[in-house]
């Protein structure tokens, strides 16, 4: 397991239930650490917990139109992934992330 690089993240998801099922998922996290690099993207394989676990970084989930779900989650990063996903331009990102998740 990799150490968390920040205390708080957000992620945009299409399926909240699947994301918080407890199974490993592939996500793009946005680092909410204050400073010049706030909102930096980080692709990971991780386990999301809701309600949050106290020893894990806080994670806020947002919908595909950016609405923040009120219940906080936490995230345990299992693996940092490459900065991009292999797919043609305009491909569905969520499908590409799911493919990576299935291949791990």
């Amino acid at each position, binding site marked *: 397991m990799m150490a968390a690089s920040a205390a708080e993240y957000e992620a945009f998801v299409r399926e909240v239930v699947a994301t918080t099922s407890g199974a490993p998922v592939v996500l793009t996290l946005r680092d909410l650490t204050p*400073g010049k690099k706030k909102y930096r*993207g980080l692709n990971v394989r991780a386990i999301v917990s809701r309600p949050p676990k106290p020893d894990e970084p806080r994670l806020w989930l947002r919908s595909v*139109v950016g609405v923040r779900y009120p219940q906080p989650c936490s995230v345990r990063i299992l693996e940092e992934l490459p900065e991009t996903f292999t797919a043609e*331009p*305009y491909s569905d*990102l969520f499908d590409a992330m799911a493919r990576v998740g299935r291949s791990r």
Partner: protein
Amino acid sequence: MSHKDLRGFLGAIEASGDLVTTDREVDWDLEVCAIGRLACERDAPAVLFRNVREYGGDWPVLVNPIATWRRLAIAFGLPADTSVRRLYQIYAEREQRLIAPTTVEDGPCKEVVVAGDGVDLFDLPVPMVHEGDGGRYLGTWDLVVSKDPATGWVNWGIYRFMVHNERLLTGFPRPTSHLGKMLLDHYVPRRAPMPIAIAIGADLPSHLAAAATFQMGGNEADLAGGLGEQPVELIRCQTSDLYVPASSEIVVEAEVLPDQIAQEGPYGEYPGYRTGEMGHAICARVTAITHRRRPIFTVDTTGFKDSSSIVTSISGAVAIQRRLEKHGVPVTAVYVPPEGAVHLTVVSVKRGGAATAQQVLDTLTARRALMSKIIVVDDDVDVFNLAEVLHAFATKCHPGKGIHVTHYEGRANTLTPCYSQAERVARSGATVAFDATWPLEWPLETIPVRATFDRSFPGPVQQRVLARWKELGL
């Protein structure tokens, strides 16, 4: 004649009272754009922030360069109080007088050059525009250059780009856009990266040309010269053979990856909403950043009545009128009201009726269908007067016979808020034409008569009333 660069334009809008400059510290994280957004909604001046948190005084940020008709008039080198109707005429005239650009060996945008591993997008004061956006948007008021490798055609467009990390951008030029088509037709099949250059803070005519609805194969640099009435000076990029306006404040050079994607969006766009189009984008690796010393980072705080709505209102309307004329529609005027977020257009015609309304609809949805609502009015309605247009729509459009709808696949505007996620993915949608003209088959003597001052009173009575108006205390 327009100003040669952004700084000349800023001097002019400051002199006219259309720019506020502040040295008070503001936060790039939402605060800058919250101020800019409210300024758009209140038709307030543009704002130049000279003290942005964590970036200090070396990276000023300008929000909403255009966003009002006054500032658009100044961008054309005209008095700020020039009427909208006159601005439309000026645009249509200058659009016909293209002026080719010149090239220069050195220019302001090369004062500082950062390339390769030295590139860090977080060195730029890229703002978080809206709460809930997918990230920080570098490209809002930009000019993106791309080139067709088969024909050498160079395209300029205003496309959104978001910072993913230090060297990676993601963006959403729509797949039906000129850049999108170029990428899909010529680079993706060859698995070749597509060079692009994102110019920020160029001269205003160049941005107006990039935002224009211009024909495929047309050279927007020539259009910029025409709109500004002088040639634009272009300079070669550091890492590609693309050329950008030499006066640009900042230039980000990059390559769009033909086989990689990353998260982009959602983003609060010009229709005034953050729609669910995220996750179908492109990504680009930055190869170099060049800029002026103490460059001005420009931002359009996109949403209701933003800069792009004003600019596209005029270029879109002129393009629509030309297309309708080319297809034989008896069009007399076209207006795309900024309040309609480039989704609504008003077309007046000499000869109305159902067939004309259908012809307008068919012509405007043949390739790309950015407009989803069209109101067709008779030519006695002033298209620039929305009260008259609304009156005609409310009273003359037959609710059973006057509504013409066309459905299409593969060319809809994916940013249209009323479309479902499935429709966005399929780019399927519809456009409706509201026929607010009198039916051609009605005998003239039976057409309802407007109960207005100019239509329901004899000339002598009108003249007497006008002569006595002040005397009556009115």
